[in-house]
């Protein structure tokens, strides 16, 4: 854990932080709102005391309540991975700015996040589906997309059916919304 990095981040981004900076093992984690992503990433990339020049990973996350975009950055100025979480994207219309202005290589990672979660990256020139066919309409990694044989988590302990006609008796007369989706606690 790089304690000095925590201090530097707090001093630089104080008001923009949407939560406390957390550190565990070799990772430092900061949360920001989706509106600040451009400014924070640019500062981390360009400023000589940070020099986070490598985007190691860009991932979408569905917590069950809202969406996140998670960036992992590497710099030679610290021994930690820096995790930047753009938190609190709405599940109905998740939008975040694109990171392609700094890393062109983020383009496909954003396409993947769009394909899997439906997150719209504003400024990405090529935001179309990358794995699923163009006429596909679902977002498979969202938590309300249930696998037909996802038996492990079913409240009845049986097979959880996606089709209404085959729904088990406990759900048959309810709405077509899934009964429980996995949610991530705070």
């Amino acid at each position, binding site marked *: 854990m790089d304690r000095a990095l925590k201090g530097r981040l707090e001093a630089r981004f104080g008001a923009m932080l949407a939560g406390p900076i957390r550190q565990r093992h070799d990772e430092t984690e900061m949360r920001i709102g989706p509106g600040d992503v451009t400014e924070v990433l640019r500062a981390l990339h360009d400023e000589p005391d940070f020099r986070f020049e490598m985007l190691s990973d860009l991932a979408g996350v*569905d917590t069950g309540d809202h969406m996140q975009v998670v960036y992992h950055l590497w710099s030679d100025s610290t021994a930690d991975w820096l995790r930047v979480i753009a938190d609190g994207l709405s599940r109905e219309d998740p939008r975040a700015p694109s990171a392609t202005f700094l890393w062109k290589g983020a*383009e496909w990672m954003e396409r993947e996040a769009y394909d899997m979660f439906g997150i719209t990256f504003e400024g990405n020139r090529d935001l179309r589906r990358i794995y*699923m066919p163009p006429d596909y309409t679902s977002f498979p990694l969202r938590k309300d997309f249930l696998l037909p044989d996802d038996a492990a988590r079913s409240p009845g302990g049986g097979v959880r059916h996606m089709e209404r006609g085959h729904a088990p008796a406990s759900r048959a007369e309810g709405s077509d919304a899934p009964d429980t989706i*996995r949610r991530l606690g705070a």
Partner: protein
Amino acid sequence: MTAPSRTGPQPSADDPRVMLDRDIGVFEPVPPYPPRTEREAEFYTLGDGQMLLNMGPQHPSTHGVLRVVLKLDGEKVVDLDPVLGYLHRGVEKLCENADYHQVISQVDPLEYISSLFCEWSPVIAFEKLLDVDVPRRAEYIRVLSGELNRIASHALFMGWFALDLGGLTPILWSFIERDEIVEMLAALTGQRMLFNYFRIGGVNGDLNHEFMSRLGDWMSRATKQIESNLTLLNQNEIFVRRARGLGVIDTAGALRMCMTGPNLRATGVPFDVRRAHPYSVYPELDFDVPTRTEGDSLARYLLRMEEIKQSIRIIDQCLHQMPDGPIMAKLPRLLRPRPGRAYAAIEGPRGQYSTYAISDGTDQPFRMRIHDPSFIHLQSVGVLMQNNLIADTMAIMASLDPVMGGVDK
């Protein structure tokens, strides 16, 4: 040009206009819908004298199932659009619906050439979630088997690359090397390709007699054997002239494309996760991170060959420093890590593999993100390809060494 009417006189069967009559199918390069993005509109708008050519998805040198739409001006490639998804299995979703131990067998087939590295990064991420200390002997066994797998992968790369440039002999030679290592790892893990060997907290089995005797046998002549294999290509003027200056990318461009591994080091950046962000027992081992400055296909090839020698050095040290002791940490059968997040990255033969795992306190990962270097490198083919010939497309792609199993997840 209009399609001939069905009622009028039928054109002869070899009239090209007959083809316009049929429905647009999967293999039509032009999408049958209005362009969805700026880039797609730009790509599928043809300039004067330009044409589209479809390569794949079943092409012998795409290293898997990949379709590339090439935009050509004469024989020059102006731009290209890779179309992925033919091998997509939804591994991340499967992992979210499997328990922590089952994840290892789910991620195995991602990079089928070097499966141990696919297992390695999730295993480290889960160990971080669980706060487990891995026994030192297990760490050494991981490094030993991992470096062997790296050599097997690079040896195969040599053959593939030469094959895509039109040489048939090197792949026969490189399979000799790869086969010996694969047999060795089969003796250790029980499998030839999808090893399923690493476990959360250690490895599945200790070193055994057959593995050690095969390894000792191979190590006694490995360096010499590899040197002699290299003379096949390194001194081949046709190969060297063809690969030199092909698909050049500079340092800034490579960082901008998020490249890692040998492809980044070939542009002069000494970024190797084993040194840049050490994991396992790599800090205790002595090896160099070779770099080159040219950034072309030849540099990427030579760099990988240099890495084989470094891997042999690491294996030699592992064998001398291998401690005694247990190979598994004591863990319950059903793992329920505390809620939290962990990120782990490792240096694979193709670059940085990483895993971002989120636990919600249950026995299944809440989210598991797998980052694969092949995916990132395939993206930069578009940048490297500008104004090269069609014949060089596959050569440049091969020099980046992507594996489609990892690209499509």
